């Protein structure tokens, strides 16, 4: 058995329409992969009466219609799938490249992040662009990715007083996490840059560029390239 993965899934009752299934109690790629695989299997062949399947770090919420099914029936179905998991083709996760213009007006807190760790701004950018971050979960606002894999050298606490307005596309750091604000919202993360790419476009056939389980790689761009991509995105 892999570390952190439960031998048997644990079930929790989340009201009269929700069944929460936990596959582990740690933030860990193996646990998250199990969550993702189960979500994908269910998306391919959902039993009757399921209205939503929501994967997060280590748990999966099934929202069901109680006039059609119930937790007892769902648990039976889940056991069957789990047994079949090895035989089912799960599409491999994709890596999405996100261009980011770091610092300046787009990343007001990058100097603070650099100073806190005795790094140059250039080193902060280099460290932030190195990993392929795993998207553990999407939530908070449409398309907001919660990413794992931030270099320990960049761990920085949240702002003491959250901003009432964080612009769309802002890239931030909060403790051991990094993420992107796809829509403008209040927020307390340290802002280090901004992407011109629209991460949430409700008018597109697929409004999102990625889902939980995929990976994100950041690429540093100049202000000129930011402006150019911005224009292309507007034209779409």
């Amino acid at each position, binding site marked *: 058995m892999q570390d952190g993965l439960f031998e048997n899934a644990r079930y929790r009752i989340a009201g009269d329409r929700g069944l929460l299934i936990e596959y582990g109690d740690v933030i860990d790629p193996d646990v998250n992969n199990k969550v993702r695989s189960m979500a994908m299997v269910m998306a391919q062949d959902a039993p009757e009466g399921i209205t939503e399947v929501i994967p*997060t770090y280590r748990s999966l919420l099934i929202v069901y219609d*109680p006039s059609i099914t119930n937790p007892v029936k769902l648990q039976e179905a889940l056991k069957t799938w789990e047994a079949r998991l090895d035989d089912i083709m799960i599409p491999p996760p994709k890596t999405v490249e996100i261009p980011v213009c770091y610092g300046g007006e787009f990343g007001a807190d990058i100097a603070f992040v650099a100073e806190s760790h005795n790094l140059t701004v250039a080193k902060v950018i280099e460290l932030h662009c190195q990993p392929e971050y795993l998207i553990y979960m999407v*939530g908070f606002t449409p398309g907001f990715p919660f990413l794992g894999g931030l270099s320990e050298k960049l761990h920085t606490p949240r702002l003491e007083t959250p901003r009432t307005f964080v612009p769309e596309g802002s890239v931030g750091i909060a403790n051991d996490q990094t993420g992107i604000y796809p829509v403008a919202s209040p927020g307390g993360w340290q802002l280090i840059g901004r992407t011109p790419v629209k991460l949430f476009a409700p008018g597109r056939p697929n409004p999102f560029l990625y889902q939980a389980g995929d990976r994100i790689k950041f690429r540093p761009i100049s202000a000129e390239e930011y402006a150019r991509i911005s224009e292309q995105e507007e034209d779409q």
Partner: protein
Amino acid sequence: MKAFSVLTPGSYTTIQDQGRYGYQQMGVPISGALDTFAFQAANLLVGNHKNTAAIEITVMGPRLEMAGEAGVAVTGAEIGITLNDQPVEGWKSFRVKPGDILDVQQVKAGCRAYLALSGGIDVPEVMGSRSTYVGGKIGGYHGRVLKAGDVIKCGEAEHPARAREIPSDMIPDYPAEIAIRAIPGPQDDFFREGLDIIFQSDFMVSTKADRMGYRLQGPKVELRKGAPKSIISEPTMPGGVQIPADEQPIILLVEQTVGGYTKIVTVISVDLPKVAQATPGDTIRFKKVSLETAHSLYQKQLKKMQDLEEILARQ
């Protein structure tokens, strides 16, 4: 066709339908009418399908100049309504014609009222729903609350020739002391005395009460000794009663997708409209029920809506 223009918008007036499903895993909350019963009743009164887009009114209603002939009904919170300065009743349909002034005033009891028009509010569907999600700037009218000067369209429809009304025994009342049924979980095992406190105390609705959630005030709902203060973020359900660091409960509603605090109990589906109608200062008392009871109440509610559809179709 043109339905009305907004003269004054009211305090928080949005377009809502049954909600946006299938995107919570992408961080898009379901949104939708908070009081599903009042919302569906309003639609049935004007001959619409029960889940057609309508107007959700919060505390203070809008003043509208009607632009076309239509059937109209206002349901939900007890609220003053006038048509060309003449009072009209809630939970009954009436007809409007171009130039009519429809004024929805301030709630007297309850919090949210629903205004349905025959043909339904005509705004583009966004990801399968017309519901407004203000936080994500999508759905409804340009993803925002209505403003003075907005011109809203509705679908063409035959509205029922005769006025319809909801039978008086099916109209809920909205008391200031509210009993709300809830099922323990999903994290009831994180609590011991906290469970007694949640089911045996009165909680007051604070002023921080909106479509995301209702913050309550009352005795502290303590976690069991040694239980972690927060959990790894997981999906939330409307009705989940979250216990944050200050140990004051929050009833989560339809504009939330994930959270990292424990949920001690979850309000049952058929009682969510009662939460939607609670206003700051009201008292909430949670009553424990089993999952089986909640499911049979859910079935009863479905049957009640079917009965209502048949009753109204005969009127």
